[in-house]
């Protein structure tokens, strides 16, 4: 699923936190999905993993139990070698990490309407952040909203534009509390995004705010 023209990439902070293993699951899913589509960020992640490996290699050691090696050998004898998993590559229209959460390809998504033609589905992740697929019909917009925390929006299909820039397939927008925006899908095609937030969105108009607790957007 390598895209030739990705111009909005992951930040160093996100890549580093993904490498360190400190992101909420919903953010990790979004990062892993972007990396599946972006060779640049895949290479940058390898560098961050190397930072982790180097720190481990040169860190101070603590004593392990006297029987630790023997206990580990017993674990090894009691277990079986791990089968090399079949390569997880994109066979259809969703990158592999996302397919694991959707439970299939885009056709199997059970969309729920949130009004104005916009549809979504919340993906099952830990509760410290929310990941959802958003379906924005061509030319339609997601209501104007701000953010209390961080929102990641990754374009899977189609494209959208907001006050910041234009985002095409593979592009990721990292929005924080400073940004209030109204993403509008390109007129040519419906836009499908993966969006992750670590705090509820803040909608400017009264209606979406009333709907928010019920719709979990």
């Amino acid at each position: 699923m390598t895209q030739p023209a990705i111009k909005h990439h992951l930040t160093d902070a996100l890549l580093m936190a993904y490498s360190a293993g400190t992101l909420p699951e919903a953010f990790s899913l979004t990062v892993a999905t972007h990396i599946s589509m972006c060779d640049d960020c895949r290479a940058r992640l390898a560098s961050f993993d190397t930072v982790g490996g180097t720190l481990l290699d040169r860190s101070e050691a603590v004593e392990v139990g006297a029987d630790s090696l023997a206990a580990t050998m017993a674990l090894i004898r009691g277990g079986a070698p791990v089968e090399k998993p079949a390569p997880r590559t994109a066979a259809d229209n969703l990158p592999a990490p996302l397919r694991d959460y959707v439970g299939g390809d885009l056709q199997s998504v059970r969309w729920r309407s949130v009004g104005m033609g916009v549809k979504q589905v919340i993906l099952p992740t830990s509760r410290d952040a929310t990941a959802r697929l958003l379906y924005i019909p061509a030319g339609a917009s997601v209501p104007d909203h701000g953010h209390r925390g961080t929102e990641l929006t990754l374009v899977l299909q189609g494209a959208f534009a907001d006050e910041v820039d234009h985002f095409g397939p593979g592009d990721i927008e990292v929005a924080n509390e400073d940004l209030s925006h109204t993403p509008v899908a390109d007129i040519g095609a419906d836009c499908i995004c993966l969006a992750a937030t670590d705090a509820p969105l803040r909608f400017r108009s009264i209606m979406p705010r009333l709907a928010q607790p019920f719709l979990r957007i």
Partner: protein
Amino acid sequence: MTSKNGTTRQIENEDWVACIARIRDAQDEAAFARLFAHFAPRVKAFLMRSGADATLAEECTQEVMAALWQKAHMFDPARASAATWIFTIARNRKIDALRKQKRPEPEDLPWGQDPEPDQADVLALQQESDQLGDAIAALPEKQRVLIEKAYFGDLSHSEIAEQTGLPLGTIKSRIRLALDRLRHAMK
């Protein structure tokens, strides 16, 4: 950080790569014991700094080291040094056991893994890892400590801010400066 010269490290890593190959090809317990002696105490320290108590850290360390044996055939020394590979196994165990979360992984590259990695690639990767290690060791203390906390304290930037009492902006800019220095050193 412990300091050793580059040549020692290189010999050491070639040794780790050879040990993993011996485990893969011959279930060599002596090779495993040598890897264990170096990495198990460091994996345990990593897990304890991430918030595990000594008992849990010991248990998880044994699982990480057992996974090293069981996954030895998946190790590709042209893509990661032994230390980096072991770090990723330990990190995933931390997410699973300590944070009780799943870790979504990127999909694999379509061309997969070469059966026999090119020795020149293995060597180049090792030299880069060493260079990066030296660059991290050479960072100003204030910057290095924050990089270590980000990886080993299981802390987000805001949590580091709470723990250190430093403003969030200072932490972000110090980490950014540190990464700039590392990039410069790797040119």
